[in-house]
């Protein structure tokens, strides 16, 4: 920025940043070696290597069922949240109706409400609506949490897109729907993919609400993990964590590199 400040003078600033980055990244990464530990403890570094925790995970119905529940819920949430959120973001971006600001605020409001409140409130409502411990209940709940992320990502996406292209298509005879799908959508495909990924991860990683509204056969992976971490720390958690880490970080990182942008909502 200012040419007369050498990078050397900023050494302490860079050192601090480096330490903070280590603090941020390292804890996330240690679960990878932990998952291959041979020890029945939390010892780190592991005294030896084995695949026993992965065998444990893939060999126990408890874990596999929970993972299957989480995957289905995440897929349902991705579809519902991405479609509903993208449609709303488009309507709000293109439309000229009043109340647009208000609607936007309402749609991103779930972000500001503590998860515990939604969790306990949904627990009460679901208890009387018969939605406790159901996939439907989980999908709806997670969609609520995911929609703000889709709205924010898609609104930013539509802003970078020149709407007059769609106008051109329409002036050449395409109807609005056709113009949207053939002209607009292909150009906002990265935001759409980002939104879908975000929705998937938000759902797959969601803990608080899942802990309250899912149990037994319909427990999500996060619910089982939470219980295991609270009651007795079974090293199988390390294998689960490593799998979750790969599932949750690889696609977004790939997308980040692909689009080559440092921006993120």
């Amino acid at each position, binding site marked *: 920025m200012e040419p007369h400040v050498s990078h050397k003078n*900023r050494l302490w600033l860079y050192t601090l940043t480096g330490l903070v980055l280590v603090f941020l990244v390292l804890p996330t990464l240690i679960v990878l070696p932990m998952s291959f530990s041979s020890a029945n403890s939390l010892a780190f570094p592991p005294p030896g290597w084995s695949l026993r925790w992965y065998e444990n995970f893939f060999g126990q119905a408890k874990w596999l069922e929970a993972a299957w529940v989480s995957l289905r819920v995440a897929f349902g949430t991705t579809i519902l949240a991405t479609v509903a959120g993208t449609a709303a973001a488009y309507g709000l971006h293109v439309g000229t109706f009043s109340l647009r600001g208000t609607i936007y605020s309402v749609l991103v409001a779930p972000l500001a409400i503590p998860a515990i409140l939604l969790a306990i409130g949904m627990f009460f*409502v679901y208890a009387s609506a018969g939605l406790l411990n159901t996939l439907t209940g989980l999908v709806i709940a997670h969609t609520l949490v995911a929609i703000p992320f889709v709205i924010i990502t898609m609104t930013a996406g539509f802003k970078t897109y020149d709407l007059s292209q769609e106008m051109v298509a329409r002036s050449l005879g395409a109807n609005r729907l056709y113009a949207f799908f053939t002209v607009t959508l292909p150009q906002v495909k990265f935001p759409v993919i980002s939104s879908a990924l975000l929705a998937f991860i938000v759902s797959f990683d969601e803990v608080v609400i899942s802990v309250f509204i899912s149990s037994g056969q319909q427990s999500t992976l996060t619910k089982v993990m939470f219980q295991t971490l609270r009651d007795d720390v079974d090293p199988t958690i390390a294998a689960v964590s490593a799998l979750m880490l790969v599932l949750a970080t690889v696609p977004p990182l790939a997308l980040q590199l692909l689009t080559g942008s440092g921006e993120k909502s």
Partner: protein
Amino acid sequence: MAAVTASQLADNERALAADERRESRQLFQLAIPALVIVTILMVAPIGWLFSLSFVGEDGGLSVENFTRIVTDGAYVSIFANTFQVALLVTLVCVLLGYPVAYVLTILPDRWSRLVMLAVLVPFWTSLLVRTYAWLVLLQRRGIVNTGLDALGLIDRPLPLVHNMTGVVIGMVHIMLPFLIMPLFSSMKAIDGNLMRAAANLGSSPSHAFFRVFLPLSVPRLIAGTMMVFVMCLGFYITPALLGGGKVQMIAQRIEASLSLYPTWGPASALAVVLLALTGGFLLLSFAIVRRLTAGR
């Protein structure tokens, strides 16, 4: 060609206006599915909480759940605990996050993108995965303790987890990206020419920073700080797992109340208080930021 009459023109205009109204209506309808999901799922549970919070143990209408929160010493200490943790976490986040966000603005693009990636990795990682990692790192014989021991800095293992320290470390790890990302985007918007102008006018780099850059970044810093603080108030998972039962925060108490009392009133009342606190602090931060940015 026949002359276009005034009435034909008016007809045209009316038709166009009708078209526009129809289109506006259609665009509005696009937002309806999302709106329905969000409103029903937000309003129903929260409304339910409100109504339940006024139901007493005998099933009648009462404010006993709220009076209990104010008079019972156990609740007072839970609120004190919650604020203490939230304040500590927020403070550490600001002290660590502000310099990092600043460095992000002065680094060359290639480097800042890499740093941003490092900030985002934990953001993308499951909360439970990270909590587990901290359990491993911070335990009595964990790598942090053995490392400090090897360096000769400590004689016996420090109690780093299952207490307040563990909770604060775990929560800072979660909240830091939430502070760094908005701070960075607002700092990027600060015109670099202002700093150059300050330097031109004879100001030293640190003087320019404190008199020009810092004041310009303050509104978003306050907004981000308040946001972090508010989010901390509602934490449940991290204190439950890293606190070892020694750090009770509001959310854990809400969960405990569900099993402790035969009715859902006490838990709901606590939830309502938490919601009021959250909403209150958010409105306050909006007001402060509006005040600070007014006249810019």
